[in-house]
């Protein structure tokens, strides 16, 4: 190895460059919010030093669901069927509990066709970073309303939505999700911090990311347009995230920052911007979300956090090793066991 030339790109704890975390070239529309999120997934995974071979990238169907192809080429992808990536995540997690699962879905994929599976994924607290790329429309099928479209938002050709939306964040909090966040594809710094914290979380992390569809839903009257989201994005706090392997070295600023630790030792710090937002208080979180909605704001940040909530591996406490690769000697009872059962049935 030559000594590092001055131009050598930065490397992470595994000695990998950011380039090692990219995927194939995106085929989404130029300017699509989803691509901006992809960029932050790459950045966060690199900064966290995720081991590519230990990561899965799961999705349903939609423009958003295509994006796992655009990051982490070293990881295993599964672009499945519309609205069912939650079951794919559950099966993957059960088969191999040592994997880090990143799931990308859309508002159509999650809040309409896949609502049932999302609800139960949260309820079982399946370990997964669930990124809901929320543009208020079905991008891939050319711009129909989704269940997160706000009342009064209009489609390109003039249709007005009159049916109230479902808010993924309050839903997730209500269901007991241990990590609920909202962000905006146009706020890379905050999104990056949230993604890293979600990657440190051991349970199900739901992140609703407002992600404008520049082709079908980016006119100023749309509540999920760049302009609208920029004008109405109210972060509840400045987020800091310190990874477990850096905790020793980095001193977290004291003062008004509040810290929450993850089981692996990582720490998120919240510096309040609005009032004194407490992300561990479920009721307060709900209240803040509803209050901001009444003022037509998007409350962003980590809205609720309970890193200790038991996961599916608590309900289904299989051995530590991946079930997928347990040898036959550990999964097949011996002939004497069969003989004993046969005797009992005689």
């Amino acid at each position, binding site marked *: 190895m030559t000594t590092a030339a001055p131009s050598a790109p930065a490397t992470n704890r595994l000695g990998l460059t950011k380039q090692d975390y990219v995927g194939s070239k995106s085929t989404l529309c130029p300017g699509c919010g989803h691509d901006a999120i992809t960029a932050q997934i790459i950045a966060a995974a690199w900064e966290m030093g995720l081991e590519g071979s230990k990561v899965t990238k799961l999705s349903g169907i939609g423009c958003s669901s295509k994006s796992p192809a655009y990051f982490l080429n070293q990881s*295993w*992808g599964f672009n499945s069927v519309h609205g069912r990536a939650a079951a794919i*995540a559950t099966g993957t997690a059960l*088969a191999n509990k040592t*994997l880090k699962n990143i799931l990308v879905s859309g508002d159509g994929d999650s809040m309409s066709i896949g609502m049932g599976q999302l609800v139960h994924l949260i309820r079982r607290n399946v370990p997964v970073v669930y990124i809901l790329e929320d543009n208020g429309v079905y991008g891939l099928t050319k711009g129909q309303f989704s269940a997160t479209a706000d009342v009064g938002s209009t489609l390109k050709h003039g249709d007005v939505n009159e049916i109230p939306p479902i808010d993924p964040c309050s839903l997730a909090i209500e269901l007991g999700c241990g990590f609920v966040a909202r962000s905006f594809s146009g706020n890379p710094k905050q999104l990056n911090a949230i993604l890293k914290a979600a990657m440190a979380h051991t349970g199900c992390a739901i992140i609703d990311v407002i992600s404008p569809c520049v082709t079908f839903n980016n006119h100023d009257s749309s509540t999920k347009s760049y302009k609208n989201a920029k004008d109405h994005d109210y972060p509840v706090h400045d987020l800091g995230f310190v990874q477990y392997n850096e905790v020793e070295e980095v001193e977290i600023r004291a003062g008004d920052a509040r810290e929450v630790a993850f089981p692996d030792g990582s720490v998120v710090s919240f510096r309040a911007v609005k009032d004194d937002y407490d992300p561990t208080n479920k009721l307060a979180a709900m209240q803040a979300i509803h209050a901001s909605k009444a003022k037509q704001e998007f409350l962003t940040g980590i809205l609720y956090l309970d890193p200790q909530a038991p996961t599916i591996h608590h309900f289904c406490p299989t051995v530590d090793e991946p079930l*997928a690769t347990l040898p036959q000697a550990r*999964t097949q009872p011996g002939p004497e066991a069969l003989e004993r059962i*046969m005797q009992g049935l005689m």
Partner: protein
Amino acid sequence: MTTSLAEGSATLVNDFSIEVATVNGSGSQTANNVLMRTIFQMGVPVSGKNLFPSNIAGLPTWFQIRASAKGYVARKHDIDLMICMNPETAKEDVAKLKPGAICIFDEPLKLDSLRTDLIWYPVPFQKLVTASCPEPKLHKLIKNMIYVGVAAQLLGLDMAEAKSAITKQLKGKAKAAELNHVAAQAGYDWAAANMPEQHRLKIVRDDKTRGQIMLDGNSACALGAIFAGVTVVGWYPITPASTVVEYLIDYADELRKDPVTGRPTVAIVQMEDELASAGVILAAGWAGARSMTSTAGPGISLMSEFIGLGYFVEAPAVFVNVQRTGPSTGLPTRTQQGDIELCAKASHGDTHHVCLYPANMEECFRFTYDAFDLAERLQTPIFLMTDLDLGMQNWASKPFTFPGKPFDRGKVLGEKELAELKDWGRYKDLDGDAICARTLPGTPGGKGAYFTRGTGHNEYAYYSEKPDDWTKLVDRLRRKLETAKSLVPRPVVDGEDRRGILAFGSSDPAVFEARDLLRAAGKETSYLRLRAFPFTAEVDAWLEAREVVYVVEQNRDGQMTALLRDFYPQHAMRFRKVLHYDGTALNAQTLVDQISGYEK
């Protein structure tokens, strides 16, 4: 023909049928199983059919027991001994009997005034139960055990065997067993003292069931999965498939705990529906687990989109389908072979799936076990097709033999193999058998990651819309079915006659008996029992050599006939459909009648 008493008053030894009419939820199931088991323990081949309603309590249910020295275990049409415990159906139950049949009934029902051509045995059940059981709230349950005692005395059953059957049936519940012993004995003693002896129906000790086990097909499937090392189960309750997983949970509790940590080596998760169940097991299979689900027709319908994905991305998983009577909710507690076409071709687009058709308990066990090897070898969903008759009824069987060989985990590349390979592509057919080597998420070394997608892809799993890539892919999937032919169980063939019977699954016992009946009437037959789809070369050759082929199946449309016609149009002219689809288990006479009808 050795059928009902109507044809003579000779004693029928070890060859008659009993029907017990009771009310669902009254605890009669235990009593009926004891009666059946007692005959089994006396060495006489016996079968039981529980005809139960889709209801928790209150609706009528019937239990048919058939003893047959010749080993005929299919349902028998005529009843020789009727036990009437349900006032609501008693009149109908009595009306359907042939003259000369025996009827035990609850005395207050006064059934003996209905017909003069039956042999009546009124029994004061309430009086007997009050005398034998001190706890009034148990009377309803205990009453059933009284008829077991009465029948035992009437038929010459050994009370010691009856008591051991009770103990077995109520394993671990000593107090309940004791109460039931007393009740059965009370029935027996009362009958001995008060009932005139009869010489028409007798059970005499034999040794034909020695060394045999008795269980239902769902238990056998559960055991097959346990011994196949199943590691992930996703399921959603549905009759008649639920007990496959419920028994599996019990067996896993006993047999699949890690000896060091005491923690399970199998994850069993009740999902929110069948869509999720299918997704969980396909993802688990994709990630390297041995995965399975158990469901019935409505569940398969819901799973269909995922099944297509599994076929197309080539992910292994085992789907047990315990078929029931459809369409729609249909008759959820009745049997049918109604999903033959559905499962062979489940999902949209061009799809074909490997289906296994077990016909008995050993095959339920062994084929479930084999299904895991096939799924991983072929990297595709495998369907194990049983039905309510196999799955939920009790059957005698030879004990299962331990499948002492290594699991076939299929073509999976690890870190070392990947390091040696220059140009790996997930969907590259290097061996010419249409099966490509896969990798599992988590494989270290930085090689072998790929993108699984339900969209069109090339050999490297990259997205492709090129016509050539597409046809190459779907043609290879079709060729994979050819490879499957060398792996699936061959058909079982018997006889040389040009008059052939082709059947599969739970039709087997009725065909066995029907062939004897046809032979007695001068009609020789040969028999091919299909055990798998895709059809193997033996099927073709056998069809080729027949003049006429009676295809026996338990559905309305002749679904297997349609599949056979599809693959062997050259033989289609010789197919004759022999169908049964009223929800009851197949009986031999139906086959004889239909086949004779064709030959008039």
